[in-house]
């Protein structure tokens, strides 16, 4: 697979890991946060932690758009779809996320029309094909996904498709990073920046992290070689006491971002004054709502949204895990009341949520390292 397999070349991975070992200061403990859930998933899928020295710690950040969605919003979306002739369309990622009365898949089992779509444009297609129904697309995602929703809304308006609306839960990454850095419990040395969000927003929006917070940040791709090279670049910056934004994912991320995508977003969305992030609380200017010009395609204005706030069970420590203050297994509910099969928090449902990733890929691996060297 071109542009994928080359970045999994074993020999180069070994070489890059060796470079990491050469660069680390044995007297120092490094804490790098990877912001993006896709990076969390990659770390576990490729077993990257096995390749890093013990004093390089990767901390999972809040860049999982499913994980940060408050349960109340899921309840709202499901409530809207319970009306007659409404089709609830969402990405597969949403299907098992628990609302107060069940997940979308459970609602489907109870008779609601729930469809998995791969693309917002597929949701629009559903609307064209089902003129007697209303398709409500439950939109999630950071800036990587928002432009696609925006373009889909533009197309819906241009074509006059009236039986389609979007329940918008798009959030933005910079305020989340700010919330992390503002958190008193946080002690981070550097950031592995979100590669795909950056194809849209470019590298400039991260400059304050380097300039004001004096923390290096490397915008990273998702293959093993990408992430390891990014760690090399971070270590080099720390070694020379620099703090700057670097683009490791050059083959795909333009420094200035994608103007057409940003334009589409600006045309359709505006920032909400504030939005609740699960585990992080209310953050101002951190989420998108649909502009007045597109009100007719905004589920929140087409329908009455209950707007119920649902607080998480006190025992669930999703917030601390999201911020990287706690490791998944340090949450009291991890592996006991909260498992991928009966998740309490979204961090356990989403395949890129740190709890699910840790549970699925790691928690029984204790003796594996020694055993591996015996079977190699």
């Amino acid at each position, binding site marked *: *697979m*071109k*542009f*994928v397999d*080359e970045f999994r070349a074993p020999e*180069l991975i070994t*070489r*890059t890991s*060796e*470079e990491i070992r*050469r660069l680390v200061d044995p007297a120092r403990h490094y804490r790098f946060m990877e912001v*993006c*859930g*896709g*990076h969390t*998933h990659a770390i576990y899928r490729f077993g990257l932690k096995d390749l890093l020295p013990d004093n390089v710690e990767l901390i999972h950040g809040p*860049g*999982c*758009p499913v994980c940060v969605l408050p349960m109340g919003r899921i309840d709202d979306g499901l409530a809207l779809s319970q009306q007659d002739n409404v089709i609830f369309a969402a*990405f597969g990622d949403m299907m098992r996320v628990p609302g107060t009365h069940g997940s979308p898949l459970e609602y489907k089992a109870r008779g609601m029309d729930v469809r998995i779509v*791969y*693309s*917002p*444009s*597929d949701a629009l297609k559903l609307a064209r094909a089902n003129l007697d129904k209303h398709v409500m697309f439950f939109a999630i*995602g*950071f*800036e*990587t*996904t928002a*432009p*696609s929703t925006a*373009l889909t809304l533009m*197309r819906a308006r241009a074509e006059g498709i009236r039986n389609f609306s979007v329940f918008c839960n798009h959030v933005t990454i910079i305020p989340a990073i700010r919330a992390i850095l503002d958190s008193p419990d946080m002690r981070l040395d550097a950031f592995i920046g*979100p*590669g*795909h*969000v950056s*194809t*849209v927003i470019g590298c400039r929006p991260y400059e304050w992290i380097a300039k004001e917070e004096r923390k290096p940040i490397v915008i990273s791709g*998702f293959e093993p*070689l990408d992430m390891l*090279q990014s760690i*090399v*670049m971070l270590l*080099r910056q720390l*070694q020379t006491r620099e703090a700057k934004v670097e683009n*490791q994912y*050059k*083959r*795909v*991320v*333009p420094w200035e971002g*994608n*103007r*057409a*995508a940003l334009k*589409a977003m600006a045309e359709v969305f505006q920032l909400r004054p504030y939005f609740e992030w699960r585990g992080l609380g209310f953050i101002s200017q951190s989420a998108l709502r649909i502009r007045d010009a597109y009100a007719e395609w905004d589920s929140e204005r087409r329908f009455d949204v209950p707007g119920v706030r649902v607080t998480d069970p006190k025992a669930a420590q999703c917030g601390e895990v999201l911020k990287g203050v706690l490791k998944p297994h340090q949450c009291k509910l991890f592996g006991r009341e909260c498992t991928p099969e009966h998740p309490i928090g979204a961090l356990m449902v989403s395949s*890129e949520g740190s709890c699910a990733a840790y549970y699925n890929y790691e928690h029984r691996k204790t003796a594996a390292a020694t055993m591996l060297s015996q079977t190699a």
Partner: protein
Amino acid sequence: MCLAIPGKIIEISPDNPDSALVDVVSVRRRVDLGLLQDDRPKPGDWVLIHVGFAMSKISEQDANDQMQTLRMLGETEAALQEVKGYGLEEENGSEAASS
């Protein structure tokens, strides 16, 4: 937010310049090119696909440059070791030039 895959443009739809047929390891799907209006890809180009939309063109040149940098990682170190043997290193130690 992050699952995006490289795919090759096979053909642009004759009646819609924003719609292209893309091949991902022999699986094909229609992909929306609306976000790449400013720099339209053509058949044969590689693009990064996320939720059915092309997000960015993939630069083969940059990919090759990256591979080259990575290949040089160990080599630079090996060259340094050799040089150290000649006793020619700087007083404050020298590290390989940054990539």
